[in-house]
């Protein structure tokens, strides 16, 4: 479908954007004195309240899962070929691959380790890993699954397995974004990969990994020189700050100095700020992609706020973690 064929879809999304949570609502949610008050505010906004649940966390997770599903149901109604949005779902597939590989070597029986919303059924993934028949998996995932499983079998190094899969996931996200032909999704993938590489480099410094390991772990990135980032990570945090201050991500430096959660927040806010221009695009796939990202962003913010309420965290500490809203 070319961009010019999204007139109907974008008009519907424009109406739906009215229901997105804005900053004022998040402030109101942050000010809620109890989980019940917060849930009532969300219910007034049209958020689904689950009828049955075991614990408060279960109730929240069911509500968030239902909201996520609502978004994808709407998009499935509007777009014939959903593969254009693979870039937003691939992460779940690779998360499930990681879970399947680790599950195959442990006695874990829980199915909750799998995340819903990927492009591949977790059962297919589990079956492929258990039987070592990777043919049902997408072509680009087959060698990754095999390599990750062999690595875990031979080295029992979970971290190394994670690195193999995470790097492949980032590469797949970048390729899916290019295939989508949507500037918004390409931008999303670019920022996602850059943020992931920065996180990998920072974590590597903190865990004392060597340069070879870091180079192996970093995914190819259009906006960062991974060679230089790996070099900097090999030297320490200050070198990472020095390198980043010369890139498009210089604003990340003060956030990295604050805390990992401040950096995570900065990454998500950066994506939201960059896609905000889609609010005024009348007929491309961009507003649809931006709507999905905005919904994911508000769902993760609501999770942060509600978790804060459950765990009695101070409002200020939760506020620091809450993301910027799209509208």
């Amino acid at each position: 479908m070319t961009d010019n064929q999204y007139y109907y879809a974008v008009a519907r999304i424009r109406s739906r954007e009215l229901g997105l949570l804005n900053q004022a609502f998040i402030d109101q949610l942050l000010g809620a004195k109890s989980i019940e008050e917060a849930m009532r505010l969300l219910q007034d906004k049209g958020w689904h309240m689950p009828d049955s649940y075991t614990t408060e966390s279960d109730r929240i997770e069911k509500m968030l899962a239902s909201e996520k599903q609502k978004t994808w149901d709407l998009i499935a109604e509007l777009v014939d070929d959903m593969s254009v949005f693979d870039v937003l779902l691939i992460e779940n597939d690779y998360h499930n691959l990681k879970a399947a590989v680790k599950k195959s070597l442990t006695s874990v029986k829980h199915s909750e380790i799998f995340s819903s919303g990927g492009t591949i059924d977790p059962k297919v993934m589990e079956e492929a890993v258990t039987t070592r028949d990777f043919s049902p998996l997408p072509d680009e995932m087959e060698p990754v699954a095999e390599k990750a499983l062999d690595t875990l079998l031979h080295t029992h190094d979970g971290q190394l397995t994670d690195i193999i899969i995470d790097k492949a996931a980032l590469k797949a996200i970048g390729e899916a974004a290019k295939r989508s032909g949507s500037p918004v999704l390409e931008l999303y993938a670019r920022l996602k990969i850059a943020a992931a590489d920065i996180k990998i480099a920072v974590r590597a410094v903190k865990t004392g990994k060597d340069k070879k390991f870091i180079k192996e772990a970093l995914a190819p990135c259009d906006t960062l020189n991974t060679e230089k980032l790996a070099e900097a990570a090999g030297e320490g945090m200050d070198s990472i700050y020095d390198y980043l201050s010369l890139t498009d991500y210089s604003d990340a430096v003060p956030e990295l100095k604050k805390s990992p959660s401040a950096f995570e927040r900065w990454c998500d806010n950066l994506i939201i700020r960059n896609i905000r221009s889609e609010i005024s695009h009348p007929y491309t796939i961009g507003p649809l992609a931006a709507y999905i990202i905005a919904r994911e962003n508000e769902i993760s913010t609501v999770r942060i706020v509600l978790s804060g309420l459950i765990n009695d965290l101070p409002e200020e500490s939760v506020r620091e973690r809450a993301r910027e809203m799209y509208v």
Partner: protein
Amino acid sequence: MGIALALLGAASAALFAGIGSAIGVGRAGQAAAGLVTEDPSQFSRALILQLLPGTQGIYGLLIAFIALSNIGLLGGNVDTSMSVGTGLMYLFACLPMAFVGLVSAMQQSKASVASIGLVAKRPDQFGKSMIFPAMVETYAILALLISILAINGIPR
């Protein structure tokens, strides 16, 4: 040959402006349907915005009528001996409406689609939302005016 050229001009005005309007109204109609799916109370507003790119087709039809009338095709007293020069004059007189009609209808539909998005977000701004696509109409009206003046200026 002259009458064929004049007829080509009249047909072009109706054809190209009509094509532009059909594409434009269809395009804006999709957006209008999207808005009404979410908010049926916006039907009348969406309909007005959808119809705006339809005017070029009417202008094209008007020019075709005037041209056909002047060359006698409507009254039954067609001038088959019309010179090539006169035929060309009719053809060129119709071209402003044909081409400006086609392009303006398509561009106006984009403005209409954007305005439908505006109404979806701010229904109270409907008045302003109509102005944006209506601005494109100016150029269709200018072309209509030139085509009418040119056709009426051709010596019979």
